[in-house]
């Protein structure tokens, strides 16, 4: 468990709602939930969520810190925005789910081997490198994210799709060596670093 996690536990003790409000994207909305359940009925992958959004909000208020932050439920959010347009209280549910996932990751509590958590990290690393996503490298690292043997298996299974994309020029093997990039890569990296610094500083301050 990370040091930041320990600091947060000491800082907030049983006040998990306050911790969420201060540290999670759009977390200040959680208290507005009236537990109607509309969001839970709206998730396209809902049947796979151990704790659908309504339940997550209830658990936050009940102080179930560990259960919430180690859950893989919010990693099942497809960003479909069904919940957002339906919630009678106007909670930005999608963003709270993303925010909880980010925060859990930051504290080192996100479930290991959660496929979307891995993919989302790969996606971020891929885009930060060059400023633009390189679909081929992203695809390759995705196939190999569970190790080499597994990767070959997945890649074989996806081969037909790859060939179809190649034939229609919707995939470019040359991307492996070069690929698309922003020109002002230096400025781009400085900007991301600065944004990261500012955010880290804010969270550190909350950790006391």
């Amino acid at each position: 468990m990370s040091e930041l996690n320990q600091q947060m536990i000491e800082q907030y003790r049983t006040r998990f709602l306050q911790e969420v409000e201060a540290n999670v994207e759009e977390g200040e909305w959680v208290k507005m939930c009236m537990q109607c359940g509309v969001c839970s009925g709206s998730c396209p992958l809902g049947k796979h969520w151990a704790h659908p959004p309504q339940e997550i909000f209830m658990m936050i208020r009940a102080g179930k810190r560990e259960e919430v932050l180690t859950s893989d439920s919010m990693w099942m959010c497809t960003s479909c925005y069904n919940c957002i347009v339906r919630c009678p209280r106007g909670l930005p549910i999608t963003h709270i789910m993303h925010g909880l996932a980010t925060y859990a990751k930051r504290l080192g509590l996100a479930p290991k081997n959660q496929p979307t958590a891995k993919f989302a990290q790969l996606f971020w690393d891929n885009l930060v490198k060059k400023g633009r996503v390189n679909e081929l490298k992203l695809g390759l690292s995705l196939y190999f994210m569970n190790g080499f043997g597994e990767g070959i298996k997945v890649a074989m299974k996806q081969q037909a799709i790859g060939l179809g994309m190649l034939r229609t020029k919707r995939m470019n093997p040359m991307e492996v060596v070069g690929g698309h990039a922003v020109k002002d890569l230096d400025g781009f990296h400085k900007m991301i670093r600065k944004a990261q610094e500012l955010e880290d500083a804010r969270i550190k301050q909350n950790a006391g």
Partner: protein
Amino acid sequence: MAKREYSFYPGCSSQKGASSSNYLRSVKAMCEELDIQLNDIPDWNCCSASIGYAGGGELPRLALSARNIALSEQHNAGQEIVATCAACWLATRETSERLEEDESLFAEANQALAEAGLKLKNETPIKHMCEVLVEDIGYDEIGEKVKKPLEGIRIAGYVGCQTNRPFGIHGESYENPMYLDKLVDTLGAESIPAYEKKVQCCGGALAFSEPEKSQEMIKGIIEAAYDNGADMIVTPCPVCQMNVEVYQDQINETYGTKFKMPVVYYSTLMTVAFGRSAKDAALDGQVIPAKQLEAIANR
């Protein structure tokens, strides 16, 4: 001079050799016919779609779109931003609204941008290409440009998620949007307004990380199109297009179905209906060929 000019955010998947490069090709032809000039945002970067959140916190993600808006305000001053990708549009517009609401985030975003010598004013409207078509141009003007009506083709309008929620097209319902159906009718094809899966999620980026769960949903989207007698599916979203088109063989294998349903973009339909070539419409970019459109384009 073109009648309308926009600052254009093409997005990663439209780049040369990327998964929706065919979308961009048909959009360009469509815009030529509609007298729309698209000025690329110089040196644009990725928006992080809706999936970068495991690695990037809120502010770094907002900074990405803030940079694009700032570049647009600097180089394409006074022009509205238009995006063709649902995720790009969503991320950009969301950033603009979040930074409008939250002064401290706005200040921090500008602090980050200053590192790249940029400054965000955040005064630029951000539109999806469908808004441009429906709101700025309108069905009548689009109808006037039709040279080859798409007669005899039954098309299921699959709007999907992010083109439709949380922003959507002004005046359209989130649960039963009709604009894609109206567009299909305007082009002389036959729409299916009661296509019940029109706003069903395809899994989005989770089609990669949770393939089985996503393909179960994709199966429903295609099945309903067949049940409604559709010849093809049309969509405004590159993620939807890719997910619904390219996994059909795998779905057939898993479920014993016999799917072979072409999935095209609205811009594909429009380019063909406007009388342009199959190449301009990027029909060669279909993994599952849209034969009826090829026949019309080659006529």
